[in-house]
């Protein structure tokens, strides 16, 4: 199939896999929290998403303070953490997954920042614990006077080794992303940034100069969560991004194939769906349903969303007009 969508090029992508996922029509990008509700079931769920037509999969590495998430994904994070998910287990999870589509890690910066730094931390905790609270003595100032962390590099190196293609970090705005951007460049991974309805002018330009892979267009203000309607803020955001030739994936609130169709018809190069899928995992978990049965419902939902996206693309770029 030829590609008539002139706004999509692969120039900004550090990782050819991720860009390629957007090259042949609309990309369906589902999200699940890795390890929700347990490691083994979660492997089946992610693999079901690929069978249902996923082009890229965003895998959440759960963090204890998910400030950008609504109630649905907060609960998923709690289940995954209780199920024993850790950064190291997450990388093992990625290595064990039997999928061919690119995987993007969605997590919060503290987990990226702390990784590979456990030795320094344990030592510090031990020495602190030795000071009894009874004598309330003054803590010695640190002799190095600076941070103990090695920064984001060890995490990115391990992510590359595990086969991840990129990152989305919701609490890391472009201003603070320099070190992670450098590490991603070093290991050939993409760094996806979120653009909100409130992102305009210079901010937008600054973000777009750092983004690679795709840009995550936040469809409306607020936190993640499935909605019954799709926001009119989306078209405005897509309009502001029209001149940028990086793939635009719209997320926040997409719940049905019909939503997917409208979003793609409005100009999105991809759709990101999280809460509507996590809802299926949560319901299955609450009902004590088997993992295979939950997986088949996820596959079915994925297919509905993918088909919707394809219909939207057909409206925007009819087959007959593709060269």
């Amino acid at each position: 199939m030829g590609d008539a969508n002139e706004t999509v090029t692969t120039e900004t992508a550090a990782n050819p896999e991720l860009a390629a996922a957007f090259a042949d029509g609309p990309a369906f990008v589902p999200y699940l929290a890795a390890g929700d509700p347990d490691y083994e079931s979660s492997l089946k769920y992610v693999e079901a998403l690929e069978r249902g037509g996923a082009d890229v999969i965003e895998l959440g590495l759960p963090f204890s303070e998910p400030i950008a998430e609504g109630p649905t994904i907060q609960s998923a994070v709690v289940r995954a953490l209780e199920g024993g998910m850790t950064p190291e287990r997450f990388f093992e999870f990625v290595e064990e997954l039997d999928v061919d589509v690119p995987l993007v890690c969605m997590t919060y910066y503290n987990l990226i920042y702390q990784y590979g730094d456990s030795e320094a931390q344990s030592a510090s905790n031990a020495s602190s614990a030795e000071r009894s609270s009874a004598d309330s003595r003054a803590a010695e100032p640190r002799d190095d006077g600076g941070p103990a962390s090695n920064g984001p590099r060890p995490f990115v190196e391990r992510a590359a080794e595990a086969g991840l293609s990129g990152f989305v970090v919701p609490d890391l705005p472009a201003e603070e992303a320099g070190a992670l951007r450098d590490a991603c460049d070093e290991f050939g991974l993409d760094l996806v940034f979120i653009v909100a309805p409130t992102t305009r002018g210079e901010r937008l330009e600054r973000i777009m100069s750092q983004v690679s892979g795709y840009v995550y267009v936040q469809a409306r203000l607020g936190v993640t969560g499935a909605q019954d309607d799709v926001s009119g803020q989306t078209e405005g955001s897509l309009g502001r991004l029209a001149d940028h030739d990086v793939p635009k994936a719209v997320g926040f609130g997409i719940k049905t194939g019909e939503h997917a169709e409208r979003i793609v018809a409005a100009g999105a190069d991809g759709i990101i769906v999280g809460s509507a899928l996590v809802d299926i995992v949560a319901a299955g978990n609450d009902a004590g349903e088997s993992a295979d049965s939950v997986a088949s419902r996820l596959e079915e939902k994925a297919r509905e969303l993918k088909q919707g996206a394809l219909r939207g693309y057909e409206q925007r770029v009819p087959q007959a007009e593709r060269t």
Partner: protein
Amino acid sequence: MTQQYADGKFGEYGGQYVPEALMPAIEELTDAYERYVLENEDGFMDDFRARLRDFGGRPTPTQYAERLSERYGREVYLKREDLVHGGAHKLNNALGQVLLAKYMGKERIVAETGAGQHGTATAMAAAHLDMPCEIYMGETDINRQRPNVFRMRLNGSEVNPVTTGRGTLKEAISETMRDWATNVEDTHYVIGSVVGPHPFPAMVRDFQAVISEEAREQLREKTGGLPDAVLACAGGGSNTMGAFANFVDDESVSLYAVEAGGSSLSVDEDAGVAPNSASLSTGNEGVLHGARTKVLQDTDGQIMESHSVSAGLDYAGVGPELARLVDDGRVNAVNVDDDGALEAFHRLSQLEGIIPALESAHALGFLESNYEDLGDVVLVNVSGRGDKDLETVIEETEKRDIEAAPSLAEFSGGI
């Protein structure tokens, strides 16, 4: 005065680690902070100071504590923030921020609260300035600080219970950030301490700096000089930075940030619990709630549940500027456990006729155990009054054998 940090960084600490949706609002707030607070545009700071005086009851006294001075054989002065309207230093910041929101043309206020002191202060300021206000408060905290919930409601604020996690300050902050991310265009988030993304740590410090500005002048009048040591409790650190700000440049003044040692300084990694709130003493550098700072966390970087008998100190992070001042050796991070704080609570109540907040009692506990090292003139910031803590104190006192404590059990059934 402490330094202004134009880029919002205190060395490696600070910064702006927030969702993109909030960044334009944070840029707008930074601009408003620089114009109104730092440059007094439209007479903002004059308006603020006048309201602090007439509505807030400032200046508060710096009182010579006769019996404590006798007990410790040195001059002990108490900065009486318990006398601020509402019973704590919290109004200094809440009034400043709600007023700033008004100057910025915002139409709605949200805030988090732990002990309920910041929530009640924000509710009072919002009523005073005619702004609709919603307060997020963890369910655990609602149960242990019930009178404050009623106070917020009486002032016309909505109180939204937060049921995630352990239901304390950490979860309340996360939930308020979510509200702000949803309603960012017309809403200002009045953060309650020197934490969060820039410009909050600097701005909250500037609103609280009135504590040390007054105390410095009042002590000069009384003693002709500066104190040898300043003691303030530290949770997030707003009364701490307020009490220290105007002494940071005086090298002869030792500064002590007294954290909650809780029941133990050790950490239970498997349970994800640190039975203390001593982020400065035992935490590690990390990113929490918008800032890089010292954080109670496990080796993976998951944030720990903290503990203190005092709800207002019960937080897994601390202000980034304090973290920097501790690393620089300018501020001493020390701690007092639950027992020491309770003993100090009873001691001040009996010796000086002042019932302190359990938070402030930590600073007084450090005075008891370390007075010999503190020099001739010691200033202690009594950040708030203890009325809100009476239920906790009755309960916790009954579990312990505290020398100075009166028998409370015989009356507790009838309260």
